[in-house]
């Protein structure tokens, strides 16, 4: 793998050097550019290999038999053992967990975006008594570690389930609402600063044309906030898809008869903990591959937006 990278990069280095010499007008410092380039590619390729090789190894291992994984971890798979995937999908329940996660993350992100931008819009655009207090209440949630909430959160959800059964422990609706609550601080914070930068002239024109507050928000302001919504949306999808602590706390079956509504992340960690007893390494790697490839594929297609979204959201 590393050698393939090396040969691919060599022409770039050699063609780069004469071009830089031709355009050189900076003086002595530029003579080192070729060396620097070579040096750069060396280190960058090394780290690139450190990132990619373990991932490729996991994918390759998902096609091996258990015996081969233990005996010959460095070798390529001798055949394509698809049964690892069917084992992971059915016995390891990766399939069910995958769809559970899709349900919760879809609900969670849609509701987070809707409620988050509603709050942010009202706080950013309408002065009223208590506005600052509510804003700071949301921002306070950004600075406190989630561990501060965990123990009572379990009790809150358990008590809620005693009165409203479909919002109790191990329910999708509850987990969606919890995800929304824990995603709100950052979403509100981010969208608040975004709505403040939008021009007021268009909003005023819409009001003159007779738009109500609600129409103004849904038909004018929300479409104008689209770039911000995309950034924070990507941020929330990745954050909620990868969440593990909250579902581990809240999505355990309460009795043997309860359905297992666990998330994908929980299932994977369960597989890895149990493999010590069952030794089904093939299924573990297949489960990892199933969990890994879709999100990597989506990322590679939308890489520019994802990178800009995540880094932009962080720097706000």
């Amino acid at each position, binding site marked *: 793998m590393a050698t393939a990278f090396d040969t691919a990069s060599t022409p770039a280095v050699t063609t780069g050097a004469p071009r830089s010499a031709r355009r050189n007008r900076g003086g002595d410092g530029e003579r080192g550019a070729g060396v620097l380039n070579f040096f750069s590619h060396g280190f960058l390729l090394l780290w690139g290999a450190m990132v990619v090789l373990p991932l490729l190894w996991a994918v390759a291992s998902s096609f091996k038999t258990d015996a081969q994984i233990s005996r010959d971890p*460095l070798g390529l798979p001798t055949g394509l053992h698809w049964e690892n995937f069917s084992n992971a999908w059915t016995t390891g329940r990766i399939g069910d967990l995958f769809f559970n996660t899709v349900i919760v993350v879809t609900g969670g992100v849609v509701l987070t975006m809707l409620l988050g931008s509603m709050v942010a819009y009202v706080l950013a655009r309408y002065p009223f008594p208590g506005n600052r207090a509510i804003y700071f209440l949301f921002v306070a949630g950004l600075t406190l570690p989630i561990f501060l909430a965990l123990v009572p959160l379990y009790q809150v959800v358990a008590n809620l389930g005693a009165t409203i059964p479909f919002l109790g422990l191990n329910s999708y609706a509850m987990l969606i609402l919890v995800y929304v609550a824990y995603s709100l601080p950052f979403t509100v914070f981010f969208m608040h600063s975004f709505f403040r930068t939008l021009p007021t002239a268009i909003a005023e024109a819409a009001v003159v044309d007779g738009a109500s507050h609600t129409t103004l928000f849904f038909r004018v302001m929300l479409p104008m906030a689209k770039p911000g919504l995309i950034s924070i949306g990507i941020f929330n999808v990745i954050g909620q898809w990868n969440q593990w602590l909250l579902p581990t706390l809240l999505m355990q079956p309460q009795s043997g008869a309860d359905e297992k509504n666990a998330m994908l992340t929980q299932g994977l960690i369960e597989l890895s903990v149990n493999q010590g007893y069952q030794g089904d390494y093939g299924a573990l790697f297949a489960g990892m591959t199933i969990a890994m490839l879709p999100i*990597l594929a989506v990322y590679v297609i939308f890489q520019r937006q994802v990178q800009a979204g995540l880094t932009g959201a962080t720097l706000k």
Partner: protein
Amino acid sequence: MRHGKYPFIAGFLVLPLALYVIFLISPYVQTIMNSFTNWGGFSNQAEFVGLENYKQLLQDDTFLKAVLHNAFFLLALPVITILLALFFAFLLNVGGRGGRAGVRGVFGSSIYKVVFFFPQVLSVAIIAVLWQELYRTDASGLINRIGIAIGFIDENKPWQFTNDPTPFLGVPSVLWWLLLVVVWASVGFYMVLFSAAMQSIPRDIYEAAMLDGATRIHTFFRVTLPLLRDSVSVAWVYIGFLALDMYVWVFVLTPQQGGPNHSSEVFGTVMLREAFNYGQFGYACAMGVAMAAFALVLGALQLSVGRRERIEY
């Protein structure tokens, strides 16, 4: 615009605010209140015990160990991650075609960025499980097998990774191995972050520097780095929060979730064990408060140290 303003505001705020207060604010407040009680289980019988839990914390060896371990991550993780990320961002941006002002990027820099960023989009659960396999302590683990093939690991004594409590530079080896995983998982994101910040620096600053005779390396250290101050400061806070957490890594990668022999305990493992294995809810809540106080002090420190006049361009 006047008519119906307050009903509209209330209508937009009531549902999100209710969710937020029920699931986030009320647990936070309850944790603080519970930390002064001896609430010990599901019976809801709790008596006020004042600062008793906090006094007990100061004598709890496991908890103090966990604090030390988090402090280790708090020192090591941001420094190593930020230095590596800056180094790679430098390599990515300082090279490239010469003779032009500004930060350009080496050949293929966008491919490097895509690849380096992979761990950021993967779930911590996937990364933790992957590293569990890389760190397998028999000769079937990827790292052990490569080491044996190259010859720097003895086949009869494969490396023990997160099973190894023996100290290295005064810190249990298991913590260094955990550190490596988190650095691996974080560097790419911060490299892309710094890289984006570098590229947003306007060209004319570089042109001015080049007219004054500055070389590429000079401009990096005298112009680019100082202008990254804000990004580095933000990165520090974020990585600090990672270092205070660490729970999932310890949970998946270490024996007995904090072992061997408590040599990799962190805040999270000790607290959740007290609460959900021993039923000591009041005591666990005191740990949560201690951790939050730690985080707040840290954030405030960072803000007051990092605050400086912002350069707008």
